[in-house]
């Protein structure tokens, strides 16, 4: 019909209450669509959803497992958010996690007693974390230097470095760091107990680090000069130059901090959850963190919440997969459906759709 039209218009702003209502609506629609899908593949939707909830909140252990999934995701997303605030598209979270895990493993397996004495556990863990941070920062400086100096595209550069880092782990596993006690099977040895993050309330201490970082990163981006500088450089490099900011230095510094945080997440994952180094240490977290970061609108407290919700989705899908023998790909589709609706609702908080008949002359259509 030529007389009907659909248009989009930007919203000035939306009240928090309405926005919350919209998101709840999105969730309901997602569950309904997902339910339809579950029904289509021959399972009872309500049972499956109940199963997901039980899988996440059913026991203290399942809650802990969920937090365990969320912690590294949260730290990585925080790291990416720092770079994204400068409009520096760090897609290299995966690789930076790998590099951090490698550096931490070096001390965990081969240097836990440098200078003759055996280090106390806290010192070893601090050294591992510092090694991850430094290695990550240096790794992150490579694409940043080329970007600041020669204007190369950081998106491609950081993306490619992911594979480099992952294959370095494979090389270490097959070669120098292969565990001789695994009888020819290429594996890296388990960390000694002193190199494993201690448990706090039943979950490895990574979640405490994550929460502390939420506060620190919040303060950094909002209340420090450096946070101000990176926001200005991101929004408008010309104005940054005009204001006398050292633009190149800000790019290098921010990219290094971003990568260092991702690397720390790699150390947390290896030392807290895996207790060894595998090439799956990042396991897609570096990519999922991009979604988490944007879904949270680059705000650190929101990142913590969104990361936890992602943990819930992951854990719930995993549970129904093993309990009800739903195939892994179907569980993946369910996750996708929920994400689709939630992400879609963000669009409607920013735009409104006007569907209407062409207005007759002299009268308002709205």
């Amino acid at each position, binding site marked *: 019909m030529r007389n009907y039209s659909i248009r989009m218009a930007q919203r*000035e702003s939306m009240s928090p209450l309405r926005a919350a209502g919209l998101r709840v609506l999105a969730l309901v629609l997602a569950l309904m669509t997902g339910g339809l899908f579950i029904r289509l593949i021959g399972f009872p939707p309500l049972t499956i959803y109940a199963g997901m909830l039980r899988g996440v909140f059913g026991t203290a252990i399942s809650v802990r497992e969920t937090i365990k999934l969320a912690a590294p995701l949260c730290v990585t997303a925080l790291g990416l958010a720092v770079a994204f605030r400068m409009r520096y598209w760090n897609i290299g979270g995966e690789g930076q996690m790998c590099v951090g895990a490698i550096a931490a493993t070096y001390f965990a397996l081969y240097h836990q007693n440098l200078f003759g004495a055996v280090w106390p556990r806290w010192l070893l863990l601090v050294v591992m974390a510092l090694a991850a941070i430094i290695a990550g920062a240096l790794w992150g400086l490579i694409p940043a230097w080329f970007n600041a100096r020669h204007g190369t595209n950081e998106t491609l550069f950081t993306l490619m470095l992911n594979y480099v880092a992952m294959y370095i782990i494979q090389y270490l596993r097959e070669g120098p760091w292969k565990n001789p006690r695994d009888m020819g099977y290429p594996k890296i040895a388990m960390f000694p107990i002193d190199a494993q993050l201690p448990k706090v309330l039943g979950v490895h201490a990574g979640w405490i680090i994550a929460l502390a970082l939420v506060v620190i990163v919040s303060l950094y981006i909002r209340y420090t*000069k450096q946070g*101000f500088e990176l926001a200005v450089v991101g*929004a408008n490099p010309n104005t940054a130059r005009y204001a006398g900011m050292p633009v190149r230095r800000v790019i290098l510094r921010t990219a290094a901090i971003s990568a260092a945080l991702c690397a720390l997440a790699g150390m947390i994952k290896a030392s807290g959850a895996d207790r060894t180094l595998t090439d799956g240490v990042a396991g897609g977290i570096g990519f999922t963190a991009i979604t988490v970061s944007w879904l949270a609108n680059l705000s650190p407290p929101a990142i913590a919440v969104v990361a936890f919700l992602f943990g819930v989705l992951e854990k719930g899908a995993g549970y129904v997969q093993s309990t009800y023998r739903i195939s892994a790909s179907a569980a993946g589709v369910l996750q996708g459906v929920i994400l689709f609706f939630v992400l879609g609702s963000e669009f409607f908080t920013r735009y409104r759709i006007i569907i209407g008949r062409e207005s007759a002359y002299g009268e308002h259509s709205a």
Partner: protein
Amino acid sequence: MKTGITATANGLHSESVRPFLDVTPVLELKRLTKTFGSLTACDAIDAELYPGEILTLLGENGSGKTTLMNMITGLYRPDSGAIFVNGKREDIRTPNDARRLGVGMIHQHFKLVEPFTAQENIILGLPRQRGQSSSMVRADVRALSERYGLDVELDRRVSDMSVSQKQTVEILKVLYRGANILILDEPTAVLTPQEADRLFDILRRMREGGAAIIMITHKLNEVMALSDRVAILRQGRHVATVRKDQTTPEALTEFMVGQKISLNIERPKTARKPLLTVNNLTVRDADGSLRLSDASFSLESGEILGVAGVAGSGQKQLCEAIAGLTAGSGEILLHGRNIAGQSPRRIYDQGVRLGFIPEDRLGMGLVGSMNVVDNLLLRDYRLQRGPFLRRSGAMKRAADLVDRLSIIPPEPLRPVGRLSGGNLQKVLLGRELMSKPELLVTSYVVRGLDVHSSYVIYDLLNEQKRAGVGALFVGEDLDVLLELCDRIMVLCGGRVSGIVEAKDATREMIGLMMTGVSR
């Protein structure tokens, strides 16, 4: 108030002045309305355009001129209201619909393919009719250009043409596509006075040929020189349409602004001291082409030195070299100390107080997504001690600035990108003046600003001048340059063609110098 004005400045609406009662208007707008979110850009606007007339559309920024034209040319759809072309109601959905109805728009930024010749541009995208040879096309184009006195070399590449020649090609292109309603958006912004006069001759000839023309402009002298009728918009409303011969610039301004303002610019006398000397300043582009060549001049404190020239004559490079944003060779001596080639930070750290208003305010100078407070912090956040950023001082200064320069809306926490051009400029200028500069470099400081804001800014500049600041004023409106500045330096193609005392200079003289005639 002068006789013949049919509406009062405060009246919402006037009875429109129909010049030809028995003629059908070629274009008639009825209660056109367009809203963006909570903003009503055009509020039930009525207007008519008759064949053989030039209607100027006058209004401050944000008064709805561009939105209105975009509805006529099919870029926006009206929320309500109707457009009649030749008495028939038309639904203009796309720019193609507009073209089909004979509406042609000449944008400020030309839509020409640079490596193509004029003729190729003119016929670009049109279907070739059966049996139509290129010599026939050529004859058609030539006939058109002769009819209106459009002097175009059809085989010349557009990239080799001057701005004014490109504009002529653009007009010819629109005419060849059968436009009889021509809309020009600030057509003289890029022209020298002589070129503008030539354009006006062309437009007058087109009017005689029966074309209907709408011209958008800010410049009152152009309104008075060219138009038959003037339609004035204010805050999205059509406040009045008056006949040119029955009005005055003062009355038009009053309609536009809603209050009486004086159109006189002061030129106060001040005490002078040497401040800035520039010797043989030469600036090249990244690709090595010469942008500013061997510029030498001096500027005293308490003086406003105007810089005139066609857009792109080296003004930008001159300003950016002084502000430390572009490297050049030569000397820039401020109080005898050479600051050439130093970064803005080095210049600042040496205690040189330099204020710079760049021409592209959101492209450089301000961050659109940040609020007034953070934009004020840009200049002096580094002076704070320690790693943390304290906003309380800037918060106070922002409130003060918003209050003193009556920035609207008065919300220091609003992202500045959402402010109108005039208010944006007040934020930028206000920040630079807060740092108490001794040298102020301003580039097109009133570009895109409405009459009222412009005069506020001239007053601010004069206030600085009285306080002993030396100002470099790069401008485009020659009348303003002649009234406001003490001396005027004219640039042409990156060279200084001369520096004249403003009180002895004339528009014609400056116009000639803009084309490279030196004195």
